[in-house]
């Protein structure tokens, strides 16, 4: 994490965030009071630790929760639960199912739409997240409009972990995982935009990637999709994520513990 202060905030607490190009992340809300002409104040909507980027332009609150609350531009892993007319209804673990348009894929046209079945896994980006509306997903990058790894996730296995684990640990690992890409015979991992937001390094995926080739897609909704050549390897990854997860059975295992666990698994 870049230049972070460990301030704990509670819902409703005033946050001293000021910048000409201020960007608010999850857990913060701009609160404009009509009675005062002063500049709108920023308040926290979640309890957690307050973080900001080095230039104090981006602010967000980090916390752990059970229920995923969609936020725009976050990459998520969803399960198709229903076909709805032109599009799909997708379960992303939020309070309401998200909608995914049939044309929100790279190169999709009226004639040529992806054929997704109920139960398929997709890696998508939240394009609309408003508290009064159901979330909307898109399966292409916002800038390039290319797939960039978004789309259907075939095969593999989906591991569920805590939201904090996804955000803090696994996701931040992706930036460092770049270096391991070349050693893999399988496709490189999928990236999400947050790698710039959270740039600290986490040991888990590089450690696993150095041992055997793997594919991973991390959704910040507490789901990680992994694939490897062997079933035992996939189970190994799943168990490592579970062990490192601070909410899991391992209770936040460190790097030495994971190396030991992998040794006992014979990986």
């Amino acid at each position, binding site marked *: 994490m870049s230049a972070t202060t460990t301030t704990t905030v509670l819902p409703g607490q005033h946050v001293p965030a000021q910048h000409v190009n201020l960007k608010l992340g999850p857990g913060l809300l701009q609160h404009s009071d009509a009675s005062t002409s002063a500049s709108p104040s920023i308040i926290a909507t979640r309890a957690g630790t307050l973080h900001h980027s080095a230039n104090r332009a981006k602010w967000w609150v980090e916390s752990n929760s059970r229920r995923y609350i969609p936020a725009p531009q976050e990459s998520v892993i969803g*399960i198709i*639960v229903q076909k709805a007319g032109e599009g799909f209804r997708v*379960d992303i673990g939020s*309070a309401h199912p998200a909608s995914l348009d049939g044309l929100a894929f790279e190169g999709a046209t009226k004639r040529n739409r992806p054929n997704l*079945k109920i*139960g*398929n*896994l997709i890696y998508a980006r939240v394009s609309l997240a408003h508290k009064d509306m159901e979330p909307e997903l898109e399966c292409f990058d916002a800038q390039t409009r290319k797939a960039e790894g978004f789309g259907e*996730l*075939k*095969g*593999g*296995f*989906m591991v569920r972990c805590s939201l904090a684990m996804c955000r803090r640990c696994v996701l931040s690992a992706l930036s460092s995982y770049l270096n391991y890409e070349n050693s893999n015979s399988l496709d490189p991992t999928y990236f999400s935009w947050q790698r710039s937001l959270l740039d600290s390094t986490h040991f888990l995926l590089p450690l696993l990637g150095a041992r055997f080739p793997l594919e991973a897609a991390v959704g910040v909704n507490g789901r990680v*999709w992994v694939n490897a050549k062997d*079933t*035992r390897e*996939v*189970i190994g990854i*799943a*168990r490592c994520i*579970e062990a490192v997860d601070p909410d899991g*059975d391992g209770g936040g295992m460190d790097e030495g513990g994971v190396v030991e666990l992998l040794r006992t*698994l014979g990986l």
Partner: protein
Amino acid sequence: MRPPSPSIPEKEFLFTALKQSLRLDGRLPLELRTPILSFGPELGWVECALGKTRVIAHVDAKMVKPPPERPFEGIITIHSEISPMASSEYEIGRPSEEEITITRMLDKVLKRSDAVDKESLCILAGQRVWHLRLTLHCLADAGNMLDCACLAGIVALKHFRRPDVEVIGDEVTVHPPSERAPIPLSMHHTPFCLTFAFFSAPDTAPVLDPSQLEQRLSAGLMSVALNAQRELCVVQKLGGVPLSMDEVLRIVNVAVEKAKELDQLVDARLKEDWLGRNVELI
């Protein structure tokens, strides 16, 4: 809102892994998650954890007048609270088929198996009996909540001690724990419930103590309740895949071994807790 059924990749991966006798949490097919029992400050307060599945059981006793048709027997009631706190599968006020199964099975395993000697709960025939209330709070469901709840319930009953009473003529005196040591319940036996999950693929072996994903993808469950003395109390199999007699007998034999292990574990934990507890004696 009920969560959607597991996705296609999850389902296919679980089946391929099970075909190779591999389970996602690294257990063997017939391996139980080791139960973790923690006792509260009160007697009869137990928290049982099977992996991430957690159930709290609590026993309390009060004196009531027995119903006229059973004047010599105490009363046991079981309150099982399965709320959305355990899993979003459960809803308030609309018990699903699964919830009803759990509640009925708890009743069979803990009450109708005659684990507690009801006649020993009688204080004064037709006038005063003990009414035991066992409350089970399901905190988290990560699969196999039934076994966890049964274990929590039976351990709570074994852990509980009721106040000593003295009867002189028609006069009943209740001695508080500070005066006389409370008395453990008189138990006939200790039944344990063990659940096996079966899968539709013919070459997939059954698994013991299914995780949530295994439970949801299974083609059928079979619950066996028995004690360490090889006495079978309940066998429950609601639909699902057909099983041959040999298979059922094999499952029961496995369950016997597991029940013996559980019995030892429970006794060791209860003894450990009792030694660490300072109960005043006269």
